[in-house]
């Protein structure tokens, strides 16, 4: 029983991180119908921005919650800028091209970030400083809950709630929903679609940046290729939940995190990475719109 609960706790905190990355995929897909493959690498950049900021101010020497929040904000701003530049330089010139061109460009941007990362940061793994170190574990019999895990979960949920607020309660959110509903019509109604798309990229990238810092803090080994696998898995999570659906992305990510945890804990770790892609294939075969994806009919 204790083992089961422990697996549950572990799976939840893994799922929360996938969720932060998956949200970016889903938001971009919502407004552009584009799978932004560079998203996993923006997450990697978030971790490295966090690393350099912490190193520069030697934040590892005096761990505190304030440090963590400061580093999170820096990484989110940094990634938002990166997201803006990616959209502006790589995707916007192709706005009128066919979708496959943009998709290939996305793969290109992804490889560009991965290998420039290796050139810039070096490809050996780096240690992420402990900028926030809550004291003591919460134990309940054999059940050990690391306060850091709870904090990661808490920060992720807060960010998701904020996102939900932005999407449903602000003018920007309404514009985003309008663009996502019908790009051309929104444009005709006077919504500056290009600017809305830029904001969407920045929001999604900022979330990925936050995920990068949170992962660096919990698994303090970061490297330029760290975004590849989580990026793909978050993509699967987004598809599982129904691409374009914000709640779906969170549910999909947490489902994936828990499924991985239980698979590894009770069966075999060899299929950890295979699981995500098996889910992807099944979803595409049987329910391509995902769990929460709305069936959208196009009226001509």
């Amino acid at each position, binding site marked *: 029983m204790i083992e089961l609960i422990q697996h549950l706790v572990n799976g939840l905190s893994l799922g929360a991180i996938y969720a932060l990355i998956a949200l970016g995929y889903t938001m971009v897909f919502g407004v552009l119908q584009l799978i932004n493959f560079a998203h996993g690498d923006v997450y990697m950049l978030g971790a490295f921005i966090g690393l350099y900021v912490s190193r520069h101010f030697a934040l590892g020497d005096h761990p505190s919650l304030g440090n963590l929040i400061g580093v999170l904000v820096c990484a989110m701003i940094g990634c938002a800028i990166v997201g803006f530049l990616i959209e502006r330089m790589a995707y916007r010139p192709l706005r009128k091209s066919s979708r496959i061109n943009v998709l290939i460009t996305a*793969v290109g941007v992804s490889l560009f970030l991965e290998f420039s990362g290796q050139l810039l940061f070096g490809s050996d793994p780096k240690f992420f400083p402990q900028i926030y170190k809550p004291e003591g574990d919460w134990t309940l019999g054999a059940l050990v809950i690391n306060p850091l895990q709870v904090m990661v979960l808490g920060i992720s949920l807060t960010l998701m709630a904020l996102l939900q607020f932005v999407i449903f309660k602000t003018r920007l959110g309404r514009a985003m929903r309008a663009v996502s509903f019908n790009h051309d019509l929104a444009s005709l109604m006077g919504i500056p679609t290009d600017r809305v798309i830029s904001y969407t990229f920045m929001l999604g990238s900022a979330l990925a940046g936050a995920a990068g810092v949170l992962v660096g803090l919990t698994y303090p080994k970061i490297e330029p290729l760290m975004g590849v696998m989580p990026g793909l898995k978050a993509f699967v999570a987004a598809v599982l939940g129904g691409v374009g659906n914000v709640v779906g992305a969170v549910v999909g990510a947490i489902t994936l995190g828990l499924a991985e945890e239980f698979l590894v804990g009770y069966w075999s770790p060899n299929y950890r990475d295979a699981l995500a892609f098996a889910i992807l294939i099944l979803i595409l075969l049987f329910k391509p719109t995902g769990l929460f994806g709305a069936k959208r009919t196009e009226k001509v």
Partner: protein
Amino acid sequence: MHSPVAFKFTNSLLIATLFLGLSPIGCKKKQVPQDTASGSAQTTSVGPIKIGEVGSMTGSEATFGTSTHNGIDLAIRQINAAGGVHGRMLELISLDDQGKPEEAATAVTKLITQNGVTAILGEVASSRSLAMAPIAQTHKVPMITPSSTNPKVTEQGDFIFRVCFIDPFQGTVMAKFALETLKIKKVAILRDIKNDYSVGLANYFAETFKKGGGEIVMDQSYGAGDIDFKSQLTSIRTKTPEAIFVPGYYTEVGLIARQARELGIKAPLMGGDGWDSPKLAEIGGKAIEGSYFSNHYSSEDQSPEIQTFIGKFKEAYGVVPDGLSAMGYDAARVLADAMTRAPSLDPQAIRDAIAATKDFAGVTGKITIDSNRNAVKAAVVLKVVGTQYKYQTTIQP
């Protein structure tokens, strides 16, 4: 479901999925940098003798490659300063394999066919040496791996040698150490399933440990590159082992140690020479302290040869050499010694001379090449204390 949009939607996802499969292939083709030679084809009787080296200078196990390279480099400089071999200088041509077996195979082919090297040194990791060995064997170029411990490496052919011990012995060392020094009976294993070295070491450890009356309470695995090990460790925790044997590389071991402590596991970890990197203590921090691993040599050894080597190494590179630097140093010197003894620089003559190496005084112990082209020598067990690796005991073959 069958609206045009749903179709488009599915299509774009399918295309996207296709890219998922393709993108790793895209990553693999990358120019091999660091080519220091001009690429003239044939070995001539004048000019320097070309020695090829393949190592992971970049990639996630970069410290393996750079440590070994520094060791080899130091040995070659010393040999050249002393007049070279047969009156000719040695020239080292180093290629980076980024820690990928397929790159290692490409690099060794290039060294042999384009650079025309006389002999090959490398790799550290068994999985990459295994990719290189058949190629060296086909071209009949002698190859010495400094520190690949998997037995299969030298079984690839009679031109493949090593100057380190092999995993059956290394596994035995840790099993003996656990039984006799730590006096424990219940051990769990966490092995890297993607790594020939780790799987082999885990098997030999389990065999000896069970023979000695110990019990393997759980045998779990992970894949290189994973960052989350909590589910395996949660399962291991239920069996309350007295130690966990993790024969992986330092890249993952540091994180495993951290997560074990976060889950409240107090048992020490044990491992092999794949732990040997300053990064281990950096990533593992306090969590890795008090853990043990087997290695080729200890820098605390006070014998004059070792202290001279450490002094020279520090002078050249500013750090204390780790085990892999020492192995690289020995591998290069064993090769030079064999070339000096060989009547000619014919590959067959060099091969025979390497095979005849007996009681060569290396910094990692006396090296004798046995009939299976492996070195027979002792291993040391080190304990992680702070950021230092402290000598515990020596275990003889």
